[in-house]
């Protein structure tokens, strides 16, 4: 006779960076049902963007939706408002923006890998990856002046140009990191504690990836070719050497590998941009107030990010709607949890790379 027990995880837990609450219903070791509560960090940013802040300030406010993909939020908002204001940016601005987006993706993916390693009980690997991650943080700090919340993008361009010293530092650090990622790929394919243990654990099938609206690395690990960088031409990703990376089984093992290979691809893109950067203006002047509406899609480290903006010719926007990747992925996450062992729950959770600040806003 099986008896169902309910085990809570969160809202405060050592394996969680952010407050989120899961209630796992378990039969013996197997999870049969999951109840979730993601609204702990709701602050009301969408409302404040239309009532408290002017449209020129909103870019910096939406960066505070999420610290990990801050630049993606600012970027998506800026592209949207530039579409309304009809501002055309030059090639140099586009490249600088992609550079920061990709550096952000590298550090976000590394953090996710470190967190997965920690939650699967491999503390040493966590330390190693966090140590490697500092190489990217140094580049970000040198370019933008801050490690995490770099308000680099503004309407009409970017706030800072890259100096020669920054460029030199970026090349050295990226080359170093490239070697370390190769080493990590070896460890994440052959080591028992981080890799082989997690084959077929937390798997999402190819069909389910579409059925449950999976995005980002979660979908790509299952073999579904979903990536805004390939679908949209709003930023010139194809020119800088973007390549779609796909997995096969959609388990934790594949998700880790997809992330690692994406880091390799991002490093390549950054190197291409840095070596091909030309002289030019970093800020385009513009006039007028926004009037109209726009839809923007952009690939954040966790998947597609969506912005809807509506302006009526005043300084205040009428509507700012943000749809974030983690929010759309929750049904898929719940499906993966069902049937898994409870002992794997923290590792599965970390491998989703969930971002509750994004979800609750």
């Amino acid at each position: 006779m099986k008896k169902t027990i309910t085990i809570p995880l969160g809202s405060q837990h050592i394996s969680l960076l952010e407050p989120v609450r899961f209630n796992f219903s378990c039969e013996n070791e197997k999870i049969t049902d999951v109840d979730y509560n993601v609204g702990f960090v709701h602050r009301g940013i969408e409302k404040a963007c239309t009532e408290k802040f002017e449209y020129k300030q909103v870019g910096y406010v939406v960066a505070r939706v999420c610290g990990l993909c801050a630049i993606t939020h600012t970027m998506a908002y800026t592209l949207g408002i530039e579409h309304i204001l009809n501002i055309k940016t030059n090639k140099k601005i586009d490249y600088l923006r992609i550079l920061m987006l990709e550096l952000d993706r590298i550090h976000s993916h590394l953090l996710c890998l470190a967190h997965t390693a920690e939650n699967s009980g491999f503390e040493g690997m966590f330390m190693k990856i966090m140590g490697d991650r500092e190489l990217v943080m140094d580049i970000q700090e040198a370019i933008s002046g801050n490690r995490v919340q770099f308000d680099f993008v503004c309407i009409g361009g970017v706030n800072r140009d890259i100096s020669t010293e920054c460029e030199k530092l970026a090349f050295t650090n990226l080359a170093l990191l490239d070697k370390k990622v190769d080493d990590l790929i070896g460890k994440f394919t052959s080591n028992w504690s981080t890799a082989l243990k997690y084959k077929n654990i937390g798997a999402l099938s190819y069909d389910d990836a579409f059925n449950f609206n999976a995005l980002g690395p979660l979908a790509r690990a299952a073999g579904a070719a979903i990536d805004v960088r390939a679908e949209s031409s709003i930023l010139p990703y194809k020119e800088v050497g973007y390549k779609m990376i796909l997995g096969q089984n959609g388990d934790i093992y594949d998700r880790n590998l997809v992330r690692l290979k994406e880091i390799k691809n991002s490093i390549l893109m950054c190197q291409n941009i840095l070596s091909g950067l030309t002289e030019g203006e970093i800020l385009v002047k513009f006039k007028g107030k926004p009037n109209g509406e726009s839809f923007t899609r952009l690939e954040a480290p966790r998947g597609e990010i969506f912005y809807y903006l509506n302006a009526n010719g005043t300084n205040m926007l009428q509507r700012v709607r943000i749809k974030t990747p983690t929010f759309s992925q929750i049904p898929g996450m719940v499906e993966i949890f069902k049937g898994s062992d409870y002992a794997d729950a923290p590792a599965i959770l970390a491998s989703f790379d969930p971002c509750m600040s994004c979800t609750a806003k």
Partner: protein
Amino acid sequence: MLHIKRFLKKSPWVLHYNTGSCNGCDIEILACLSPRYDLERLGVLNTGNPKQADIFLVTGPLTHRCHDRLLQLYSQIPDPKVVVAVGSCTCTGGVFKDMYNVNNGIDSLIPVDVYVPGCASSPELIMDGIVKALEILEGK
């Protein structure tokens, strides 16, 4: 007699709770525990259990939903304890000030000993805050 205070300073365990921050300060706290900054050389260990903690690291402007949880966690930490507010929004509400679901900083609810500024606070500042917290812990 056990000189608890003398030994307490050698191994202060921290409890970390996010009350609605953007994650920026949380990943910087994580970076503090990584090899570059390495808070563990001060004896600091990250714990998930409030009953074992000495230093309470709080981030975020305190959303209404986290209100009760923060109070519960604070009351479960045994005395002597030190509260460190990490980040501008934790100190005053910062960019989230006067948003409809926010309480403008955690000091409206619990007493704060050390305020760490910055959006996001850099690891150096967080470590500085923890070292200050250790001095306060000794005096408590």
